[in-house]
């Protein structure tokens, strides 16, 4: 199964642009303009990662990560944020994210983060499978 990149951003233009960019690089993309909409459609069985904005109405990026975790799903997150001081604040809070990138985000750094996240997801899935087979 090909890994899927979920993009969650409430800004329509940003969402379209990211979708175009990642599609151009051959990623399978699923885009959502609201975190709640994403939670409704999130399929934990599909491998891949989430690229999410931090500041969003309704549910912010960190709350979204919490919501995914609380449902018992392990899904790596890449945060993209316009807040200048968010990355350091997030590090201090030990936010469980693969990467925290500042907007406007450069394509090569975004791809590196996504590739890392997908790799992490695939590895954890295979470990889980091995653990599952043993028990």
């Amino acid at each position, binding site marked *: 199964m090909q890994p899927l990149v979920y993009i969650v951003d*409430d*800004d329509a*233009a*940003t969402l*379209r*642009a*990211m979708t*175009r*960019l990642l*599609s*151009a*690089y051959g990623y399978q993309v699923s885009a959502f303009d609201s975190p709640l909409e994403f939670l409704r459609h999130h399929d934990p069985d599909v491998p891949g990662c989430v690229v999410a904005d931090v*500041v*969003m*109405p*309704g549910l*912010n990026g960190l709350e979204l990560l919490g919501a995914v975790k609380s449902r018992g799903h392990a899904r790596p997150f890449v945060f*993209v944020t*316009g*807040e*200048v001081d968010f990355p350091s604040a997030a590090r201090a809070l030990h936010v469980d994210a693969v990467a925290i990138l*500042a*907007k*406007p*985000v*450069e*394509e090569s750094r975004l791809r590196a983060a996504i590739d890392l996240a997908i790799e992490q997801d695939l590895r954890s899935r295979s470990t889980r499978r091995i653990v599952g087979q043993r028990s």
Partner: protein
Amino acid sequence: MERIAEGLAEEPLVMPDARRVVALALFVCVAYYLGARLGFALTFQPNPISTLWPPNAILLAALLLAPPRQWVVLILAALPAHIASQLQSHVPVSMVLEWFASNCSEALIGALLVRRLLGDELRFDSLHHTLVFIACVGLVAPFVSSFLDAALVVMNGWGGANYWDLWTQRISSNIVSELAIVPVIATWLGSAGAGRRPSRPAPAEWALLVACLVLVDYVAFGLQDRSSGTSALLRYLPVPFLLWAAMRFGPRGASTAFLSVVLAAIWGALHDKGPFLSEDAAATARSLQLFLTVMAMAVLLLAAAIAEREHARRELTHLTRVVLAGELVGAIAHELKQPLGAILSNAQAAQRMLSRGDLTRQELADSLEDIVDQDLRAVEVIRALRALIANGEPERAPVDMNAVVGDVVELMRGELRTRAIRVETRLQSGLPFITGDRVQLVQVVLNILTNACEQMAQSAPADRTIAISSSATSTTVALRFEDRGRGFPPDHAEKLFEAFYSSKKSGLGLGLWICRAIIAAHGGRIRAESPGKGAVFHIELPTARNA
């Protein structure tokens, strides 16, 4: 080529200056001549000294408007006008030239003193400048030059009066002339009048003021004569109208209105009419000049004080606006990253597809469209921020209040996002325009919305909503802003708008006070209520047709 370019570059720097001095010299020549004719017409015969002598004031005003290196040109321009006017009145030639010298000495003393004390620019919208003007031009210059003038008249045996009588007549006439005429010329021809004005009255108000002044001048100075008996009190009739001119029309309007009173009063007295008539011509002239001198000082100082106060208020309005913008700058910088990020991603997506050779025309067109839109979005945010920070002259232009609300919401998008506040707008489409200054109205809406954000900092996420609606009647446009924040005690509905009232620890408490002043200046009303939960602000503004 280089030399040609240099010549072209120099031309605009030199020419306006030269053109200006030529224009000013022409003005001096013509106005000096006409002023002299008027001065002769306003002379109580057989006195050699006019009740009002405009030429000196005209020359002095011109010197104040030009740099000293051009003064000789202006003085030479006045000479032919002087000779032409005086010879017509059968003044001996030696007297004509000596009088010119004494007139020039007055203009030079006044202009030199003002320049020494105030520098390049004399501003009648500054109390300090106006005081210096009254002292130097109004008092010292006529005082000093009158010694010379009276001596010359006595030496020539012209008119046959004694030295001190001449001196007294000359100084009282010239004080009135300087105080009444120089401010009019300086404010109309110089930059001093165009600057700070208390308000911008509509043409109808101008017309009304002119009509009232004509009527009042006539009633006060042209109606009574000796046979009907005269009341000295009638001389105060123009005072309320001069106050009106000073309050609403600034130093330029006030000094012009005052000049009309001066001319009417002297003309009336010369024709044996008005409230100044005394036993003889000299006594009439004295009473007239004393009254006009005192009035001139009062009107000039009042106009300056009002202009200064208005200027201070305008500076304060700008200052509070900059503070408001400063609070938003972080959020706005954040907001700009959205369009910049979208532009970057779109461009890099297109680059990637191009290099892979699978870029379709449609994809390219879509990307470009988004790039353009996002660029314009960023430009719009920067434009709104710049407008907010700029300290421009307030405008009177048609304003769409829906667009003002849109501007503010755009400016605050970042702030609203970080605070997770929703804005629900119900704006009536086709809202009539109002007349006013768009930037100041943006300031009002911005102030109300940032207050609402502060008030909702502790609110539950579901309650973080601001509802904005607009509506119109046939004569007014109404805006309503409702938040679900902490609200305020019912008896504070008026206190909110007082200066230094603040619910924040850091705030100055000037925001809503300025808002009320801005809305009042637009002929509208602003009020607040706190119906249990949160606060509601109402703004009503007259539509452009009813302003």
